[in-house]
C-alpha cells in the first residue's frame, strides 16, 4: 500500500518538505544578513503551491505515472516578498523578520508532524484493533 496515496499523508509530507525548504531559504537570508546588495527572499505561500498541484487520476498499477507533488524541489521564489528595511549598503535582510519566519516554520513543522503521527496511530489502531 502506498501511504502517500492517502491524501492526508501526501499533503502532510509535502507540507513538511515545503517547510524544510523554506527554512533553508531563511538560513540563506540570515547568513547573508550583512552582505551588501543581498535582498531577503522567500518561497511562495504553500496554499498557492497546493493550488498549482495537478490532480491526476488514481494509480491502479505501479507502472502508472506518479501523482504530482510539491516535494520534487520545484518550489518557486516569491517575487514580491516584502522586506522590512533596506540599509545603506543595499542589504535588505531584517533579522527580526527572519527570526519570526523561522519560528513560524518550526511551529508549523511541529503541528504537521504531530498530525502525521496521530494519523499513523489511527491507522495502526485500525489494523491491530484496540490494545
Amino acid at each position, binding site marked *: 500500500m502506498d501511504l502517500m496515496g492517502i491524501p492526508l499523508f501526501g499533503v502532510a509530507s509535502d507540507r513538511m518538505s515545503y517547510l*524544510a525548504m523554506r527554512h533553508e531559504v531563511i*538560513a540563506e537570508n540570515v547568513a547573508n544578513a550583512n552582505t551588501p546588495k543581498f535582498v531577503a527572499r522567500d518561497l511562495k505561500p504553500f496554499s498557492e503551491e497546493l493550488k498549482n498541484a495537478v490532480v491526476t487520476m488514481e494509480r491502479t498499477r505501479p507502472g502508472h505515472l506518479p501523482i504530482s507533488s510539491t516535494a520534487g524541489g520545484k518550489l518557486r521564489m516569491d517575487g514580491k516578498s516584502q522586506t522590512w528595511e533596506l540599509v545603506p549598503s543595499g542589504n535588505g535582510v531584517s533579522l527580526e523578520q527572519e527570526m519570526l519566519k523561522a519560528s513560524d516554520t518550526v511551529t508549523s513543522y511541529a503541528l504537521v508532524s504531530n498530525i502525521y503521527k496521530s494519523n499513523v496511530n489511527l491507522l495502526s489502531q485500525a489494523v491491530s484493533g484496540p490494545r
Partner: protein
Amino acid sequence: MSDPLTAAMAIASTGLQAQSTRMRVVSENVANANSTSDVPGGDPYRRKTVTFDAELDRAIGASMVKVKAIGVDKSDFRMNYDPSHPAADAAGYVKLPNVSALIEMADLREATRSYEANLNIIEQARTMMMRTTDLIRRN
C-alpha cells in the same frame, strides 16, 4: 539535491564563520587602537575592514556567505601634538591609528547579533530534524 535541513545548517555555519572572522578583525582593530609607528613621522596601524559576499554553492544550490576581502580603511590618521613621542615628526605631531572605539563596538554588537541569529537557525533546523525522526518512534 541534498536535504534542505542539512543545507540550512551548512549555510548557517558559513554565516557563523563569516561573523567570527569579522569579530577577529574588530578585536585586532581594538587591540591596535594606539599602535603608533616606531620611526619619527611614520604611519601607524591602519584600521582593517571586512567585506562579505554571497557565493552560490553548486553542490547545495544556495547562496553561502564568505569573507570577500579584508581591506584597509583609507581614512586619515588622527594627529596628536606630542613632541616627546618617539614617533613624532619634525613639527612635533604624532600620527595615531584611524580606529574609533565607538565604531568598533557598534560593529562588534552587530556581529554578535548576526552570530546569534545563525545559531538560532541551526538550533531550529535541529528541532525540525528531531521532529522528523520522532515520527518513527512508537507513540
